């Protein structure tokens, strides 16, 4: 849905990243369908795929390798625009707007990625994704490489941009708390399959599938007494699972 965030949770190897890459056309699809705005996009030709680029965009996990170290921030942000035939003057104008949107100073444009911290680089990556006014952004672990407080600020930026532009997110993360914070709906992946999906509150607070329950119980709560309770509950759950 436009303006909606769907969270995709899973552990490493569960296939969540691959699912995101399939939506982006970076991973081959061998069966089933991916429909976007009523249209099948699973098996698109490269040329058709390119036309979709103004609609579906991406923010990757690693803010260090997702920006070309040899290009300035402005060159990075202008790149998708010039492909669309935007004139150089209009593109420069757009870069200024984008930088402002993601909370970076305008003088950042002439600098290289290495001059920025992880959080700032991730802001640049978000600005690049926004450059073409997409309808859907696939966010692949966009905050897991960031410090706790930076992570919270970047997530708030994601939410703020969504509220303003109505963009939809497919938000991939291994962190239940992060997904819960940003997602309207949540899907849980385990060994290449979605085992549970539903409203954010439903899935993250009252999970039904045993795997989701295990995942939920495994995440330690930042409160010593509550965590002790959760630990006991988790061990009980494990014991039951072991018997059954």
């Amino acid at each position, binding site marked *: *849905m*436009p303006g*909606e*965030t769907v969270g995709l949770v899973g552990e*490493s*190897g569960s*296939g969540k*990243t*691959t*699912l995101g890459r399939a939506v982006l056309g*970076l*991973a*081959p*699809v*061998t069966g*089933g*369908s*991916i429909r976007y*705005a009523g249209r099948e996009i699973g098996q698109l030709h*490269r040329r058709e795929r*390119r036309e979709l*680029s*103004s609609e579906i*965009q991406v923010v*990757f*996990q690693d803010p260090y*390798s*997702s*920006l*070309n170290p*040899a290009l300035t921030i402005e060159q990075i942000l202008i*790149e998708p625009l010039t*492909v*669309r035939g935007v004139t150089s003057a209009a593109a420069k104008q757009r870069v200024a707007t984008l930088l402002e949107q993601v909370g970076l100073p305008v003088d950042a444009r002439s600098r290289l990625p*290495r001059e920025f911290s992880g959080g700032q680089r991730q802001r640049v*990556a978000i600005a*690049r994704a926004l450059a*073409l006014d997409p309808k859907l952004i696939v966010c692949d672990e966009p905050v897991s490489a960031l*410090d*706790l*407080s930076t992570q*919270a600020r970047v*997530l708030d930026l994601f939410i703020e941009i969504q509220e303003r532009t109505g963009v*939809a997110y*497919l938000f991939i993360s291994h962190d*239940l*708390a992060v997904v819960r*914070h940003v997602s*309207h709906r949540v899907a849980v992946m385990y060994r*290449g399959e979605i085992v549970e999906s539903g*409203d954010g*509150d439903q899935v993250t607070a009252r999970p039904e599938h045993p795997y989701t329950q295990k995942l939920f*119980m*495994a*995440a*330690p*709560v930042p*409160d*010593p007494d509550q965590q002790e309770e959760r*630990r006991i509950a988790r061990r009980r759950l494990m014991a039951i699972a072991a018997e059954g």
Partner: protein
Amino acid sequence: MTTAITPPNTIPTPTGRTSLLRRVIRRPLGAISLAFLLVVALIAVIGPLIAPYDPNLASLQLVLAQPSAEHPLGADSGGRDVLSRLLAATQISIAAALVALVTALLIGVIAGLIAGYYRGWFDNVASWFTALVMALPGIVVLLAARAVVGPSVWAAMFIFGILLAPAYFRLVYAAVSAVRSELYVDAARVSGLSDLRIISRHILSVVRAPIIIQSAIVAGIAIAIQSGLEFLGLGDMSVPTWGSMLNDGFINIYKAPLLMMWPSLAIALTSIALTLLANVMRDALERTVQVRRRRRRAVATATGSIAAVTTSIGTVTGGIGLDAEAEAEPTIRHADDERAAARAGDTILDVRDLRIGYGQDDGGTLEVVHGVSLDIRRGEVHGLIGESGSGKTQTAFAVLGLLPRGGRITGGSIDYEGVRLDTAGEREYTAIRGRRIGYIPQEPMSNLDPSFTIGSQLVEPLRVGLGLSKKDATEKALALLERVGIPDPKRTFAAYPHEVSGGMAQRVLIAGAVSTDPDLIIADEPTTALDVTVQAEVLDLLRDLQAERQMALLLVTHNFGVVADLCDRVSVMQHGLIVEHGPVRAIFGRAEHPYTRSLLGAILDEGPARAPLGGADIEQADIEDADIVKAAVVKGGAR
């Protein structure tokens, strides 16, 4: 002579051509080589125009004439002016070398780009051809070619270019393969860039510098080979080249020894200049690569990153700048609660006013830890929490005596069970580290040697450290593996690190850390690299082992959940200082320092989930039973 050339074995930084040129000129050797080559190039262009005589004009009076005013370099066996011939030969020799160079460049680079970027059948075919061409003896091919197409310099050099192409192919292929998997290339594809644009913008810029270096080497080889062919008399003798002049000089070496010197000088100096230039360029590039690698590693470790500290506090030379601040803002200390008080008194590790600095290039010292005091009591779990760059890992490494190169303790003391560690040398540390202090690292995989079995890596410290026999050590190692919850200890014992999962590897390292019954274990983000369900199991294991053996644990982490799960007391670090310290419940319940509060405030667990969006349901993206190729799932998981 074969055409195998080792490509410069680095993938240099994508540096602009101008900056590379500038760096080359700054080195005297580079400037001289470049200047010489420019002169040669100039002669190649205007040589025939400034030649005093027609290079093919023969005069019987002048056969083997000595140098004179009219003929400064004399004349050759055909009575032709040597200077004029040398000037004209430069043009042809250089042009012939260029033919080989350009042929090799075009074939090698284009094939390398396509094979490296698209893979598939072209990759297989191209790699097969490369192997074939490299296996062919170059000179034999050239001789055969001459027999077929006749004595043409150009044809010979074109074929030689094909023989040289693998040198470029392999270089470009390796660089493209490396850069292809970079996320920014994926991002460019998602941005809708055409492949041509991606290659020219993101990929060519990476391979440009190594190609230039390779070209200098290849040009030198082409000149040498071309001269060699001509010298053997296999070329077209009517065309003046350095090689044919050499041939003529060699025949008349007794009558006119000087005749051989001029073409020899031209060939040797040009080849040497090209090789030296290539070396200088490689040196210039490699230096920047080293700097960048170091920087990236500093950032990549996330914890203890010097780079992050640099940005957060700016450069503090001599460590004076922050002293005032350090004293102005003392650590907030919460009194022990009942649980913490139970262990009061028996301190095993006492860190007092510890300062850690890194030597800078300018001779100053960048201080990253500005006076940290910390005490760990027997059998307690002490959490050291902070964000990247706060100095928490530096502090832990200082206790272990494992500061990265350039780092040293600049002040304060570390006292472990009565031994002063801050002044201890390597010899004293070997008796302590890994025996009386255990260590559990962040990345389990990179801390196991891939070329030894897990068993041998566990047994070795037991034999050396505790002096056990091989049999006893093996038994103890197997018991330990079983204790840390490894399902089939015998199989894991015989396995190599790549055969076990990350969670299992971390269990192995925990087994190793507790194997010598240390009183203190330092765990540096022990669960950060693990999945959350595995993390829970590893935390359980740590708790059980800790309670069972009454070891103290210094737990370095940025995860408040892990702290809440395990720790008895907590120290919060920021900018190389401990800002707040106290029992775990006091820190979570009554944090006073604004930084601790902001960290606790950034935790998302407590927040409400976002409500579902109601209303207009225009279906936008819908994935139904998308069955993605198996291999791709594995690849995705590895990311």
